[in-house]
């Protein structure tokens, strides 16, 4: 399912809403999650999962082709932990 398929599905379930409002709803939700992560905040959606940001320290990496050492600076990576209910859903409905 892509974002546009999700929007189409929501529009079908909510015929009283304009398609562009449905689009804004979906965009707002993901944009808000992204903004929270960019602030370094956690986003916890009980039953679904939690998004957080993990820090990776600066390290010395290697160019795999040449073997030359390169400095990799500190960075942050987003992380998603699946919620309990969702994890159970994935393993019950087959």
């Amino acid at each position: 399912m892509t974002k546009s398929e999700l929007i189409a599905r929501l529009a079908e379930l909510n015929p009283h809403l304009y398609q562009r409002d449905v689009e804004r709803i979906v965009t707002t939700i993901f944009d808000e999650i992204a903004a929270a992560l960019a602030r370094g905040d956690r986003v916890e959606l009980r039953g679904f999962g939690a998004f957080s940001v993990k820090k990776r320290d600066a390290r010395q990496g290697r160019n795999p082709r040449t073997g030359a050492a390169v400095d990799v600076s500190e960075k942050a990576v987003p992380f998603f932990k699946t919620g309990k209910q969702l994890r159970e859903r994935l393993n019950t409905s087959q």
Partner: protein
Amino acid sequence: MTERTVTRAQLSEAVYQEVGLSRNESADLLELVLNEITDALARGEAVKISSFGSFSIRSKGQRIGRNPKTGEEVPILPRRVLVFRASQLLKNRINAGLAKAAVRGKKQT
């Protein structure tokens, strides 16, 4: 940087502010979005949200695990796990945020 936790309340408030539906309906729609994603994943479908990231399902085979407390061998049954991959855009946005926070930290000292 103090880490705060954003929950459904803040997300549905944002939908309320942005779209102008009632607070109740905003909360219902947020729930519906999460449910539709959950249903797709439960069907084994991947969910791709452009400029955000993708959720996909990976099937894991059975393996032997160990109870770390007792050392006892226990079979870990085959199961399906969810993997989230952030888009490059989201990764860049988070690292831009990190750089900004670092600059703020320096100014304070």
